[in-house]
C-alpha cells in the first residue's frame, strides 16, 4: 500500500512539473519560423497540397525513413521472439471460434472496399489527409479481417518479405537518387512537381507514400503472420 502511495506522490511531483509546463504555455498566435516557411514554400518547393505529408516525406524524410525502419525492426524482432517458441505441445490447434457465416461473407464483401480505400488513402497522401502510414494500416486491417475470417489461411511468407524488402530498398534508392540528381538525400524534385493538385504531382511524394504504405502493410501482416505461426506446433 505504501508503495502505491509513494508512487502516487512521485507522480504528483512529476505532475507538478508538467503543470508548470502547461501554465507557462500560451498558444502561439502567429506561425513560428519553421511552420511559416513550410506553409509558404509547400506549393512551389514540394508541390503537395497536404503540408503535413510534404513535411513528413520530403522535409523530414529521414525521420520517416527511420520510422519505417522501426516497423521493419519490430516485425523482424517479433518474428525472432516468437519463431523459436512453438506453442507447447498440448496447447496447439487453432483456438479461434469457428468463423460464423456472417463473418466469412462479410469479409468477402468488405475486403475489396477496404483494399480500395487503402489504395486511395495511400495514393492521395499528398492531396488529402492520410498517406503512407494510414493506407498501410488500412491494408493491414484488411489482412487482419481475412485472418479472422479464415484462421487456417496462411499468406505466402516469401511474398510478404519480398514486398517489404523491395519497398524498403526502393525508398532508400529514391533517397540516394535524390542525393545524386536532386538537391539532397530524399529530395522530391527528382521528378517534376507537376500540376499543383493533380494526382501525379509533388515529385516523388506519391511514389514514396505508396512504398511506405506497402511496407507498413507488409510489416503489420508479417507481425500478424508470426503471431499466427505460433499456432501450428
Amino acid at each position, binding site marked *: 500500500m505504501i508503495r502505491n502511495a509513494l*508512487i502516487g506522490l512521485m507522480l504528483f511531483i512529476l505532475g507538478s512539473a508538467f503543470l*508548470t*509546463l502547461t501554465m*507557462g504555455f500560451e498558444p502561439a498566435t502567429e506561425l513560428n519560423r*519553421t511552420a511559416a516557411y513550410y506553409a509558404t514554400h509547400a506549393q512551389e518547393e514540394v508541390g503537395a497540397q497536404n503540408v503535413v505529408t510534404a513535411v513528413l516525406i520530403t522535409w523530414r524524410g529521414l525521420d520517416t525513413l527511420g520510422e519505417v525502419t522501426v516497423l521493419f525492426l*519490430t516485425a523482424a524482432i517479433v518474428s525472432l521472439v516468437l519463431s523459436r517458441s512453438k506453442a507447447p505441445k498440448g496447447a496447439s490447434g487453432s483456438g479461434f471460434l469457428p468463423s460464423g457465416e456472417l463473418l466469412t461473407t462479410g469479409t468477402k464483401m468488405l475486403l475489396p472496399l477496404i483494399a480500395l480505400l487503402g489504395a486511395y488513402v495511400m495514393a492521395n497522401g499528398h492531396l488529402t489527409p492520410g498517406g503512407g502510414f494510414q493506407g498501410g494500416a488500412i491494408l493491414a486491417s484488411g489482412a487482419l479481417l481475412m485472418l479472422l475470417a479464415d484462421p487456417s489461411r496462411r499468406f505466402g511468407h516469401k511474398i510478404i518479405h519480398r514486398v517489404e524488402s523491395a519497398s524498403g530498398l526502393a525508398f532508400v534508392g529514391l533517397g540516394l537518387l*535524390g542525393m545524386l540528381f*536532386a538537391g539532397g538525400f530524399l529530395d522530391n524534385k527528382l521528378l517534376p512537381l507537376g500540376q499543383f493538385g493533380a494526382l501525379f504531382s509533388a515529385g516523388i511524394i506519391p511514389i514514396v507514400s505508396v512504398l511506405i504504405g506497402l511496407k507498413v502493410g507488409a510489416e503489420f501482416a508479417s507481425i500478424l503472420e508470426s503471431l499466427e505461426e505460433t499456432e501450428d506446433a
Partner: protein
Amino acid sequence: MVSSILILAIGLGTAFGLGLLNRRRAVLALGLTLGALGLMAAMAVGWLIVLAQGAAPVEIYTAGAEPPFAINLRMGLMEAGAITLITLTGLLAVLALRTALTRMGRGSMAVVLVLIMALSGLVMTRDVFNLFVFLELMAISTGGLALLSKDIRAIAAGFKYLIISQLVTILLLVGIIFTYHATGSLNIDDIPETAMGFSGLGLALFLILIAVVLELKPFPANGWALDVYTAAHPGFSAVFSAASGTAMLVVADKLVKAAGPDWFAMFTLLGLISFIGANIVALRQDNDRRLLGYSSVGQLGLLLAVIGQQDVLGEGYLYVAGGLVLSHAVAKAGLFWMSIMVKARGLSDWAAIRVRPPLVIAFATFLAMLTGLPPFPGFYAKWELAQVLATTDRLPILAAILIGTLIEAVYLFRWFGMAMKRETDTPLGPKQIDCMVVLITLAAAFGLGALWGDLSENGNLFATVPMLAALFFLALEPMPAKLKNGLAIMALVYWFAAHAGVYDPMRLIFLLVMILGGAVILLASFNEDGRRVGFYPPAMLMYAGLALLLEAQSTFEFFAAWEVMTLGSYFLILRGKQSEPHALSYMIFSLGGAFVLLSGFALAADGVTPFPLSALSLVPEQVAPWVFALLAVGFMTKTASVGVHIWLPGAHAEAETDVSPMVSGILLKAGLYGLVVLLLAMGRQSLHGVDLVNVLAWIGAISAFVGAVLAVFQEDAKRLLAYSSISQMGYALFGLALMNHLGWLLAVMFVINHYVYKSMLFLAVGGVYKRTHTKLMYKMGGLITLMPFTFVSVLVGIIAMSGVPPLSGFGGRWIFYNAILETDLRLPLVLIFMSGPVGFLYLFRLIHTIFLGQLKDENHQIKEAPIWLLVPQMIFVAFLIGFAIVPGLVLQRVDRFLGTVFGDQPLIWHGRAVESAFGNWNPVAIMVVIVVIFVTLFGILIAKNHDAVKVKQFNIVFSAERPYRPETTHFAWNFFAPYRRAMGFMEMPLVTRFWGGVSEALSGTAEFTRKLYSGNGQTYAVQVILFVVTVYLIALGGVA
C-alpha cells in the same frame, strides 16, 4: 570524401536487402553484413583521416533544404572518431556473434545493421526529433538483440529494457515538443543557452537532458542495464557498452553544449555519483559480466562528469574525453569478447585464460587501460584532466575521480589476481576467431596508446628506449630463460654505462643501486631453467620505470615512470605462490600513493605544462605546503612508512626467490629518490604552523621502531626481513628529514647498505627456502654445516646490518651520531636509539634459528644453495668488506655534492680516515686492530685445542641418548618470548585494523546498496522515475 550519409544508407539498404535472400543462405547474409559494416567502417576511417588533418567539420543537408527546415547531419572530428569506433565495434561484434546470428537467421543480422546505423545516426544528427527516432531505433534493436544469448533470463532483461525505454520516450517527447514550441525549430543549434530555470524552455531542456542521462545508465537508476549486461550475449554486450555508450555520450555532449554551461554542474554531479556508486557496488560482484556491467556504468559516469567539465577543459577537452572514451570502449569490448571464450561465469573461472599467454597480456592490457595506467590513452587523459582540474581549483572533483578510479582498480586487480592464481575446471572455448577478435582489440589498444602518446605534448611513452626494451622482451618470450636473463643483464649494464657519466653524484648512487644493482640480482635468475614465461617483460617493465624515473626532468615523466614501475612490479610480485592478496594490497597502496602524487603534481603545476621538477621550489606560498604534504605521502606509500606499511610484509615475503630482493632492495629506493627530489626542491615547509619535515622525522622514527619490534616476533624468515626493511627505510627517512649534510649522507649510506645486505639476506633465505621448502624458521636449524656459504653471507649481512664496528653498518651509525648532534630535534631520537639494539634481536633470531642450533632429521641430506644464488651473495660480501675498509671511495663524491647542496663541509677526509666536528672514524685502523687481536687470540686457541673434533649431534643435550622427538631440541619457536611479554602491546595491529575497517565499510555499503537491484522490472521503473524526480527537486532547489 564521399558524403557521410552513405554510411546510414548502406546500413539501411543492406538491412532491407537481407530480406530478399531466402532463408537458407545464412552464410551469404553474414558475408553481406560483414561487407556492409566493413564499408561503413572504411568510410568512417576515411573521414577521420581527412578531418584529423585539420579539415573543417562538414554539414550534410537532407531534402535539399536549409537546416531548421530539414534535418542536417554534421561530420566533425568527434563524430568521425565516434563512428569509426562504433562501426569497428559492430564489425568485430558480428564476428564474435557469428554463431548466434547464423542460428537466429538473417533477421537478427538486419537488426545488428540497423543498430549500428542508428548509433552512427545518433552521433551525426543535429535534429532533436531525429535524435529521438534514432534513439528509439537503438532501444528496439537493443531489446531485440538481447535475445541472441542462450541465457533464457535475457528475455526478462529485454523486457525491463523496453519498459525503461518507454519512460525515456515519454520524457523525451514532452521535452522535445515544448523546446520546439519555445525555440520555433527542432534543430539543436537553434537551442539558445538557457539558464537552468524551471519554466518553459528551461524545464523542456531539463526533460530532454534527463532522458539522455537515463540512457547513459546513471548509478541509482540502472538496474535494467545491468540485467542486460549479465544476460545478453557478450558479443552484443560489447556493442551495448562500447558503441551505444559512446554514441549516447556524443549525444549528451551535443545537447549540453547547446543547453549552455549552466547545466554542466548537473552533469558533473550525476556523473560522479554514478562513477563512485557503481564502482563501490561492483566490489561485491562475483559474476564477471555483471562486474563488467558495473564497471562500464562507472566509466560512463566518469565520462559524463568529464563532459560536465568541458568548459574548464577548453581545447584539451577532445583529447581528454577522447582518451577516456576510447580506453573504456576498447577495454570493455575486449573484456566482453574474452568472456565468450571463458565458459563459466565465476571470476576465478577466468583462470582458464592462462593456457594462452597472449590472452593474459590482453587481459592485463584491458585492465590497465580501464584504470588509466601508462602507456595507454587513459593515462595521458587522466594526467591532462588532473592538471586542468587543479588549475581551476576544482579539487573535490579531482579527488572524487581519483577515489573512484582507485576503487575500480581494487576490484579489477582482485579479478586479475583471481585469474592468475586460482584454478578452474572449465576449459577455454576452442574457437580461433574469438581469440583473433580479442587480439585485434589488443592491437587497437596498443595503437591507441602510441597515438595518444604522440598527441600529448608531454612526450610519448612508447618512444622512450626503456619502454621499447620492455616491449622487446615481450616478443622474446618463447626464448629460453637463461638467454633472456643474459640479455636483460646486458641491457641494464649498457643503460648504467650510458648514463653513469652524465648524472650528479646523488642520482649516480641511485642509478648504481637500481640499475647496476638490478643486474647483479638478475644473476640469481640464471638459476631458473625452462622458458619462465611472464617473468622478463614485467621485470624489464619495472627496470624501465626505474630508469625513466632517474631520467625524468618534468613531473609528467616522473609520474609516468612511477606508474610504469608500479605496474611492472605488481606483475612480478603476483608470480609468487600465495601472493594473490598481498599483490592486490601492494597494487592498491601503490596506486593510492600514485594518485596522491598526481594530485600533488597537478596542484604544483597550476597549468604550466611541462612542469620541470626543479620548478617545485617556485610553487607559490599558500599552495606549497599542500603540495609538499601530498607528494610526501605519495612517496611514503612506496617506502612503506608506518601507516601505509601493511602491504610490504606480504608482498616481499610471498614473492619469488629472485623477485624479493629486487622488490625490497631496489623498489623501496624509488620512494627515497622521490623524497630526495622533493626535499631538494621544496626544502622545509610548514602547514598551519606544523613543520612538515619534523613530521617526516617523527614518521621515520616511529616506523623504524615499530618495524624493528614487529620484525622480532615474526616466525617467517622473509616476513622478518620485510619488517626490517620498514625499519631501515624509517632510518633513511629520519636521516633525510634531519635536513642537514650528515643526515643526507646517512640516507645515502642506508640506500647503499640496505640494498646490499637486504638483497644478500633475501637471496640467502631464498636459497634456504629452495632446499628446505619452508620459510618458517622454527622448521629449520643447524644448517651451518650443510650450507656454509649461505651462512657466511648471512653472518656478514647481519654484522653489517647491526652496525657492529668492523663492517660498513658502523659507518652509517657513526654518521648518524654526528648528524643528530647538529639538529635540535630531540624526542624522535629516543625511538631511533631504541630501534638500534632491537634490530640486533631479529638479526640474531634470523641467523640462530636457521643456521645454528640442532639439525632436524628431515634436513640431513639437503645440499648447499644453488650456485647461481650464491654468486651474487659472494659479490655482495666482497663489496661489503671493501666498502667497510674504504668507504671514502663512494662517499667522498656524494659528500662533496651534498656540500654544494647544504653549503657546509662537516667531514674532512684524511686519506682513508675521516674526521668530523665531533669525532673521528678511521675504518682501516679499526679493521686492522680488530683483525690483529682476533688473529692472535685465535692463534692462542688453536695452539691449545688444534685437533678438536666435531661432536655428534646429541652428545650435548641428551648425553648421547636420542630424544623421542629430536626436532624439539632446537630452541627457535617464539624465540623472544620474554620480549614479547614485555613489549607485546606493540604488536597490536592498529594500522591493519584501520585499513581493514575501511575496506569492511566499503564492502558493507556495497552489500547494502546492491540490494537496491531487486530484479523486479517494475521496481526499476519506479527507481527511474524517482531518480528523475529527485534530480528535478535538487536542480529546482539549486536554482531557487
